[in-house]
């Protein structure tokens, strides 16, 4: 394939955000994924969320590993810096970049193969370090680029296109994230933009590590009958627990939720998450409870979705490191090099 430039046609009627940018300004190159791929819907949701948040495109960093999902950062926000790393190791590059410049918005896109097999170690450790980033897994239960092998998220009994049946238990990214100490854990479905866009906005605003596991069916290798990650299966057994609205700091909260059903979570930057409980007694601030409820639903063959766990106020990597406020990459050399006189003093004990 070749690099396709999408024609940029600016209609005067296009709605502009606070930066005077239209949605088109947050788009990227034309997708080369299969027609109908769930990942393209996630890309569209990312474009929408970044536009709504009025993020300056060049202050965004897009990162990915290897796989179909990892190709997608080329398809959104073309004016953001991007880096397509090696298989399973995007988290370490994100960690290093975030260590060097804490003032950028980091968005990583990975897949179930990239994060749950070769990259499981890095996936867990980036969460325990609480690196400030949004990490989206486009989860389809299958290796697409190598044509249809099971991934570690494939469910027991799930049938491959060629008929093989998976007998090994899945590694679930959401349960793994809860266990590894992630401070923002969500699940959604590529076909539910209404749920996905506010989750992405909230994840980008979260001061810490935010995971969104997006069930994103593979139309080519995992959308047949007997697949548990097909469009049909996901639509049927998709069960929202909490509906999330993201409210930017400047906006009024207008969510007219019934008393008792709604709760608010204030984020560090002053924005709010308005959460509406679809399951009446679901508490997304209770890690243990979230674990139990998600697991119960999985046993029943259902996907519990929405913002399943959130914890604000925990220190991120830089908080734990006590880093200076300015990005390390931009500190002037004179603040880094102690100079000749200090060296002379330092060497005295070695004489």
């Amino acid at each position: 394939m070749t690099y396709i430039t999408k024609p940029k046609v600016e209609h005067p009627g296009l709605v502009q955000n606070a930066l005077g940018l239209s949605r088109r300004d947050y788009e990227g190159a034309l997708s080369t994924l299969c027609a109908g791929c769930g990942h393209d819907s996630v890309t569209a949701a990312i474009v929408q969320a970044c536009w709504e948040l009025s993020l300056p495109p060049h202050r965004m960093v897009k990162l990915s590993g290897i796989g179909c999902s990892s190709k997608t950062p080329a398809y959104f926000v073309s004016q953001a810096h991007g880096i397509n790393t090696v298989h399973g190791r995007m988290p370490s590059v994100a960690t290093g970049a975030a260590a060097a410049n804490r003032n950028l918005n980091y968005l990583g896109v990975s897949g179930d193969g990239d994060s749950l097999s070769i990259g499981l170690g890095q996936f867990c450790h980036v969460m325990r370090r609480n690196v400030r980033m949004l990490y989206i897994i486009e989860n389809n239960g299958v290796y697409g680029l190598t044509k249809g092998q099971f991934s570690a998220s494939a469910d027991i009994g799930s049938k491959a296109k060629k008929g093989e049946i998976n007998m090994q238990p899945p590694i679930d990214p959401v349960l793994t994230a809860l266990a590894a100490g992630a401070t923002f854990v969500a699940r959604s479905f590529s076909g539910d933009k209404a749920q996905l866009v506010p989750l992405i906005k909230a994840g980008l605003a979260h001061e810490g590590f935010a995971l969104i596991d997006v069930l994103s069916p593979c139309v080519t290798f995992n959308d047949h009958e007997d697949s548990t990650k097909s469009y049909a299966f996901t639509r049927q057994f998709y069960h929202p627990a909490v509906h999330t609205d993201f409210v930017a700091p400047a906006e009024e909260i207008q969510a007219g939720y019934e008393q008792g059903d709604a709760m608010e979570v204030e984020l560090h930057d002053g924005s709010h998450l308005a959460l509406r409980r679809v399951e009446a007694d679901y508490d997304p601030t209770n890690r243990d409870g979230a674990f139990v409820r998600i697991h119960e639903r999985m046993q029943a063959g259902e996907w519990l979705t929405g913002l399943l766990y959130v914890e604000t106020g925990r220190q991120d990597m830089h908080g734990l490191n006590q880093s200076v406020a300015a990005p390390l990459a931009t500190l002037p050399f004179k603040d880094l090099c102690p100079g000749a006189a200090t060296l002379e003093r330092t060497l005295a004990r070695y004489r």
Partner: protein
Amino acid sequence: MPERKAPERVNDFTLKLANVNGTGSASANGLLMKSFFRMGIPVAGKNYFPSNIQGLPTWYEIRVSRDGYRARSGRVDLMVAMNAQTYARDLADVSPGGYLLYDSTWPRSHVLSRDDVTVLGVPFAQLCNEAFDGVRTRILMKNMVYVGTLAALLDIDMAVLEQLAQDNFGKRPGLAEANMKAIMMGWDYARANLVCPLPFTVKAMNETGGMVMMDGNTTAGLGCVYAGATVGAWYPITPSTSLMDAYRSFCTRFRADPETHERRYCVIQAEDELAAIGMVLGASWAGARAFTPTSGPGISLMSEFIGFGYFTEIPAVIFDVQRVGPSTGLPTRTQQGDILLAAYASHGDTRHPVLFPADPTECFDMAVQAFDLAERLQTPVFVLSDLDIGMNDWMCKAPAWDDSYVPDRGKVLGAAELERIEKFRRYADVDGDGIPWRSLPGVHPKGAYFTRGSGHNEAAGYTEDAADYERLMDRLTRKFATAATLVPAPVLQKADKKASLGLVSVGSCDDAVLEARDRLQSEGIRSDYLRIRAFPFNEDVQAFLDAHERIFVIEQNRDGQLRTLLINECDVDGRRLESILHYDGLPMAATPLAAQVRERLAKGAAA
């Protein structure tokens, strides 16, 4: 008292101390070595320690050399045998005419004796049991008692020892006094019961001015601080761990705000080396100076990412403190076994600049150079040290700093420059040196591009086009040619008259080569000596190979890796390059090296 005497020698002998690890002998042995250094006498120390925390044998070798030689001598004039487990072996290790000092609290076997070694007994344990309370204190103080005995036997200046005890232990009340008491006990006992001094002694000189006693991991860590590195990521591995310990400790002093405690650095202990190098590349990509210290096994794990860094042109500084491999190998022994691994790490076509420090002073200098080169060339750069340099305290020139130093951040476009240009082309060879211009994230919308390990064209766009790929690879070759003009030049030492024999060596072999060469020269064997300090090899290396009929390549590995690299990268007939190798895990010594050269020359003459 035995009457047999070694020839009288001043400031020219080797002392070996056999201890049990975890008993505190390291600080006593360090104190002893430092006392020679403070007396102005050139000294070299080598620590042979096990991969263990407590209970296994460990040796410390101290060479006192008025001529300033820092390599191992290959002899043992005085053995301090404090480990009953290794007594037989330690006795056998003493050079003919030498001495052995042991703890006479317990009788030693009569089977174990040698006619040509003088055995001296001091009841160290008994003295300590009588003078100190507590098991741990008695064990620790025993070391100080033998320091006192050695002071009497070797004529060490007691005022120097007292000052050192004060410097080392003065911060804790009573500790310096207790240590000094133990030292005096050993000294008094020796003066009353042994013939003092021995035929070899020390005498104050003035040969250590401007020098320090430091290990190469400490100086490299200090170099990273001075170079302005702000992100360090690593996974603990012997023998590199103390490099990051040093960096962190210097940063605590120089890079933390005294009031707010805010840090101008970030050290990340990674989950493995796969992640450590990823963090370094991420941080460098985002504009920080970033580094990772590791050893051979770590380089193996990092290799995929190193190739990614080469191909996407991201700076990185990797310190490889080499140890014996493969796998665990001998993790506490030294080797130069990663030369080829570092030069060509990763799959596909990859080549990397490698710097070869020969001592701790060069570790400091090359740490700074490595960051300049990595950013100038936009590529991973290796500093190939080894356990001998990294973990032993060396008498070496004090690292120096020039306050006019300006870091070379390489070709980075700022916001104003990006604003001016029409279109940013990340991988275009604008200047003809193979080095493209880069932009940093967050600086300007025009600087944005997608970094990818996949095939990319000059505008950083995805491509599988054959011509595009070939053009990119050819530019990387041009860049590597540019690298050869920027890396540190080799050090050439010419013989007094024209020599047809050339010696080529690298890194920590240097001291053994220098000493062996002096000795051979005094026997009429002339040689020119080229110490390689970097890969890619520059034109001086080619000129040296051209100018000598016969060339011995001296290095510390079994397979002659430097020789292979020279044959592969230079225009030379491999038959003219002969390997002289040392690979037993111990630092190279001059005597066996000189013998190997003589033997090789004799063979060549016969043929």
